[in-house]
């Protein structure tokens, strides 16, 4: 590039340009703009140090392994229990139990073609539960397949299951 071309590109005089830049920076300072680099850039050695990276990686591994452990424990702490009743003549069967406040709401059993009603319920291990089947909203009975029903004090029996 020739000298004349260079002069065309930078028409302004260097001294004038410097004054202009000073004025712009002064205005920026007045407006509160940072005149320094951000803090992160101020500590590049700290951020880039191996120790910090190792600690960060270890923390990540610890968090992930804790989450995995909790998931495994949670899975082992509960189990799926299938409640079954043979009642071909019934129109509706519900499971009422101490784990659902004896309401049966949301615990309707599903009927298959042979008239067998069933529902699978997740229950926590380490406890026993009491339950009955509500049939057509008016009759109820303990589980005939669950062995000895216990006296419920209400004129009937209640089935129990231990998990």
């Amino acid at each position, binding site marked *: 590039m020739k000298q004349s071309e260079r002069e065309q590109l930078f028409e302004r005089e260097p001294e004038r340009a410097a004054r202009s830049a000073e004025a712009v920076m002064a205005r920026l300072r007045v407006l509160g703009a940072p005149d320094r680099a951000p803090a992160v850039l101020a500590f590049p050695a700290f951020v880039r140090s191996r120790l910090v990276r190792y600690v960060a990686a270890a923390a990540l591994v610890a968090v992930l392994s804790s989450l995995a452990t909790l998931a495994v424990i949670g899975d082992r702490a509960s189990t799926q229990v299938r409640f079954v009743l043979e009642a071909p003549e019934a129109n509706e069967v519900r499971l009422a139990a*101490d784990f659902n406040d004896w309401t049966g709401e949301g615990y309707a059993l599903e009927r298959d073609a042979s008239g067998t009603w069933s529902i699978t319920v997740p229950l926590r291990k*380490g*406890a*026993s539960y009491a339950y009955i089947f*509500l049939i057509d909203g008016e009759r*109820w009975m303990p589980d005939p397949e669950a062995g*000895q029903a216990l006296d419920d004090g209400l004129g009937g029996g209640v089935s129990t299951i231990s998990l």
Partner: protein
Amino acid sequence: MKRIDWHKAVTFCLSLFFAAALAAQGGSGGTKIPTPGGAPPGAASPPAAPGSGLTDRSGGSLSGAGAGAGADTSAGAGADTRTGPGSAAIESFGRWLETSREVSSFFPVRYRLLAAAAPAIEAGAPAEAFHIRLREAAAKSASPETAAEALEADAERWTALARSLGPDWPPAAKSAGFYVSAALAMRNGIGLDAVEAVASWTRSAKASPERAAAALTAAATLRASIAFSPAEAGRAALAVAASRLKVGDFDELALLAERAARSGVTPFLFLAALESTLGSGGKLKDLERRLFP
């Protein structure tokens, strides 16, 4: 930037504070302790309530220990105005009986139910246990009379149990479940002393109240399976609770007892094998081998 109007902000906060205080004082989101006049025709009038601390708006008492449905109100008994945690729980239970749709079929005997529950709750039994039992009764469409009789019987058991266990155990979150299971076991032939023994072991071993409850239920099932006497069932409950068996094995144990009974094993022999095997850390298979070599 918009400036905060501190005057308005402080006024708003004070208004919120007073509204919350008024709501708390008014109590229970508008549920009322009913007056006798509000009861339906034929409903029992509130009997006397020595010890419950519950009073209705006419100054009479809402409950009375030992007074049944239809008992007359005794004005003199309303003088006791204790206000402790038990009284608050009784009052809350009374409100639930009055207002809950879940147990509306027991409205005619609500005072009798409250009278039965009051001494037990005062003694430290969890009010939630009464809720659970009444929900069970409602699910089974029990008549008001049947529900009242069942609850009175349970209340007696829970009163004795609460006096024996004290307030510290089981922890509040698991207390109702334990009490309900204990009542089920006691109704089916497990004595109070056996429940106390299991509870005592559970406390000292720092085991879960749910395991204790399951062991009591298992012992009641064993009693039905092999005709244990109450004393034998109590010993079985402790042996099962303190064993290395998982709770999930307890039902298998009952089936084993049934099989043993069918095979002619006497309750005495079964209990001896159970205590010996489980007491030495054995498992169900060890017990089975011992019973059926």
